[in-house]
């Protein structure tokens, strides 16, 4: 490898907040060689995005400023470059790929035009040439029909395709360096694999240097050449991938590696043996040929008949008391719908769900009453799952009050107990969700689920939004509760590694149907269905010697309409 294309020395970014100055990036130095992929990892808020934005001087607010250090690109110091000169660097020399393609693509401009725009501006092409160039790039990033898809709008694509478009935009001006800020976090594992592969191919074809930000060590292990670990704005460790993975220098790196769920032998808990399964004759939950259909969006009066999509299509499942079952599947495969149907939160189209012996379809009232007091749910987004206006204590107290099993006088005490149970300090009772971290919120959510004293807890992707380290803590909490309270747990996740860690049994869903079901170790070791195999194959493993998997499933798109609200006029009678 030749000399570095990008050389960062003592980059420091500070922001004045409430009279004091906070250091967001603290004297970070590293080099990026030509053709190198550098993985930047670290927990949320560690400053990964901030470094990248500092490189192109697009800091999120005017108050945040680069206060020291140099960023050398081809001998130019970007840190002191004028805004005009920076404009020639952005796009043309350094391209950016953002985490959330939906918000970073202009929703009202055609995909192709967004690519052509940069080409026209940086390369001075006329509209026709720019269009041709853009079509070519679209082809390169894997659009099957680029000439036609040039004219599509971002929302007409699936998340994976949008991320490809985002990459195409970044590539449009032939940059030397690509910065990819968590380009796959929002995507399914299978799509994630495709995107990563695309990035690597591009690196090989074009000799790009890439800075890849991620919080998933598996990705780093399989795609990057070197790794930089960041924490609180400081670069803790930087070196070739194998060295960092094999012999981490810093304690934080060690804990990061430990909490990666793809390493069962390190994770403490082992899957339960059959002997540990409590023996019961009657299943707690029995699902028989369940179908849930929704009217398809956007049906107009000119369409004949009703179009419906079957979110859950003929699912049958039995869950024994005390069992922990994982449900996996790509986005939109019907996992959440199944969960809601079980809890009677969504009308069943046909089939049966019976909970502790009573049938939801036939004895709706009794079953619902039973479900409400004996089953609870934990949600994916910890903030969205809690009413932002209630304190944690009020929230728990309300549940206890409505459930009516706890005498009013005992409620405060019970609230305290619940907080203890989820390992939250009792002082949190007076705080509102907004002043808690994601992990703390999720604990509060679990406390709420426990407040009903449930037999069954359904956790719908309850750790997907959390940092790996926090994820590991929550999983441990579940493991602990499960054994302590003899809970039956239905655990929905798209992260197969977690399921493997926690669950006895796994159910694989694909397009509303169960395609595979069985004991965890058996399924993972020996998937029978191609889809399961693809899912498992797509998990980036922390082992750097495993090849990057291919994800080869057709993506699906779900356009969403923006609501239009008309209010009151604001001028008076004239």
């Amino acid at each position, binding site marked *: 490898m030749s000399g570095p294309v990008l050389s960062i020395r003592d980059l420091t970014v500070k922001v004045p907040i409430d009279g004091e100055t906070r250091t967001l990036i603290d004297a970070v130095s590293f080099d990026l060689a030509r053709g190198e992929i550098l993985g930047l990892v670290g927990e949320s808020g560690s400053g990964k995005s901030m470094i990248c934005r500092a490189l*192109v001087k*697009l800091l999120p607010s005017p108050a945040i400023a680069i206060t020291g250090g140099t960023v050398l690109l081809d001998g130019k110091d970007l840190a002191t470059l004028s805004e005009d000169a920076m*404009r*020639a*660097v*952005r*796009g*043309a020399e350094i*391209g*950016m790929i*953002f985490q*959330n393609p939906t*918000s*970073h*693509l*202009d*929703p*009202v*401009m055609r995909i192709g035009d967004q690519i052509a*725009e*940069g080409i026209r*501006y*940086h390369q001075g092409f006329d509209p026709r040439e720019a269009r041709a160039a853009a079509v070519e790039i679209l082809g390169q990033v894997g659009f099957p029909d680029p000439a036609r898809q040039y004219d599509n*709008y971002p*929302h*007409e694509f699936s998340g994976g395709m949008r991320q490809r478009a*985002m990459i195409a*935009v*970044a590539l*449009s*001006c032939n940059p030397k360096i690509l910065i990819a800020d968590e380009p796959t976090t929002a995507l399914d594992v299978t799509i994630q694999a495709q995107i990563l592969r695309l990035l690597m191919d591009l690196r090989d074809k074009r000799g790009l240097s890439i800075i890849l930000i991620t919080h998933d060590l598996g990705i780093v292990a399989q795609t990057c050449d070197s790794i930089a670990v960041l924490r609180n704005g400081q670069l803790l460790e930087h070196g070739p991938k194998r060295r960092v993975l094999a012999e981490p220098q810093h304690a934080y790196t060690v804990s990061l590696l430990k909490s990666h769920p793809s390493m069962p032998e390190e994770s403490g808990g082992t899957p339960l043996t059959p002997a540990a399964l409590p023996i019961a004759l009657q299943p707690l939950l029995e699902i028989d040929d369940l179908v849930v259909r929704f009217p398809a*969006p*956007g049906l*107009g*009066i*000119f369409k004949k008949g009703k179009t419906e999509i079957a979110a859950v299509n003929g699912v049958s499942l039995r869950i024994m008391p005390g069992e922990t079952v994982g449900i996996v599947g790509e986005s939109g495969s019907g996992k959440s719908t199944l969960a809601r149907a079980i809890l009677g939160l969504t009308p069943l189209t046909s089939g049966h769900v019976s909970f502790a012996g009573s049938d939801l379809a036939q004895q709706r009232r009794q079953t619902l009453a039973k479900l409400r007091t004996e089953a609870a749910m934990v949600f994916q987004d910890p903030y969205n799952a809690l009413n932002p206006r209630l304190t944690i204590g009020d929230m728990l107290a309300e549940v206890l009050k409505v459930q009516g099993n706890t005498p009013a006088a005992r409620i405060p005490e019970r609230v305290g107990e619940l907080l203890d149970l989820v390992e939250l300090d009792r002082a949190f009772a007076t705080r509102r969700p907004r002043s808690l971290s994601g992990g703390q919120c999720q604990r509060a959510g679990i406390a709420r689920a426990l407040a009903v004293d449930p037999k069954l807890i359904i956790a719908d992707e309850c750790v997907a939004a959390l940092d790996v380290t926090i994820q590991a803590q929550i999983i441990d909490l579940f493991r602990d509760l499960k054994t302590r309270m003899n809970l039956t747990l239905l655990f929905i996740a798209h992260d197969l590694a977690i399921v493997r860690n926690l669950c006895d049994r796994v159910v694989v869903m694909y397009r509303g149907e169960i395609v595979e079901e069985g004991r965890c170790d058996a399924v993972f070791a020996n998937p029978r269905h191609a889809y399961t195999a693809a899912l498992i194959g797509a998990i980036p493993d922390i082992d750097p010697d495993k090849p990057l998997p291919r994800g080869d499933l057709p993506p699906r798109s779900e*356009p*969403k*309409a*923006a609501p*239009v*609200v*008309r*209010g*009151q*006029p*604001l*001028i*008076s*009678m*004239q």
Partner: protein
Amino acid sequence: MHRYRFVLSRPLQFLPVLFGISIITFILVRLIPGDPARVLLGTRSTPTAIARIRAQYGLDEPLWLQYFYFLENLGKGEMGKSILYKIDVLKLIATRIEPTLTLVLTSVALSILIAVPMAAIAARNNGRLADHVVRIVSTLGIGFPPFWLALMLIILFSVRLGVFPVSGYGETLGDKLAHLVLPSLTIALSLSAVLTRSLRAAMIVALKSDLATAARARGMPESIVFWRHVLPNSLVPTVNLLAVNIGWLIGGTVVVETVFAIPGMGQLLVRAIFSRDYMVVQGVAMVFACATVLVNFLADIVTVSLDPRVRL
């Protein structure tokens, strides 16, 4: 172009709305105490004369029958006869609709011409002096009673400076425009204030949005970022706000029409209500309602063409 399919289906939804409005107006105007015959006859009215006039206009029939006649007429494309003006309501409205329409259109055009640059300046200088000035001016602009503002404009521009006519509605196009400057300005001062506030807020959000950052990250200069990305992405709420306000203006220009002596629908309506000219009130209400519905419909079309994500 399946996005625009609602253009065909939507008009069907107008019918129940217009039907509802016709019933409500019909009942409402007849609930008003007072008698058109008595108003027509003035202070010298005698009971016999009143009875004769009432019979002549069918006001002595039972209400449901009157409404039936009204619908029957509507089916024939008529709206009955004005009691005060003695001519067909539609004909009467036809003579009065143009000034109001022109007034609303010029006011809206003027408001947009004022609001877009003001909002742009404010948003691009967010937090700086220019922004504060625009904010204060637009916040104040909403609060002026229009009739007071109108008189002040007349005194300043017509009496002191003599540049625009005091009032009236001209005959030739140029003449009309000259006459419309002050009335449009009166409306535009408050309307543009409302639009500026909404547009400015949307632009500030869009300027900070991810898509603007992304455009900057591919090296686009600020002007392209603003005009090609930020502006199109901030228009939708303002378009809808504008639509509501146009609907409101269509039926609410009476004060400006009165001060500037513009022979429009607002004046017609007020005089019709005061003289209990039922047919005219009904007719004008229907026309206003149709116009409002139409404006909202247009706004929907504009919204859909501005934002490809929107489905209606």
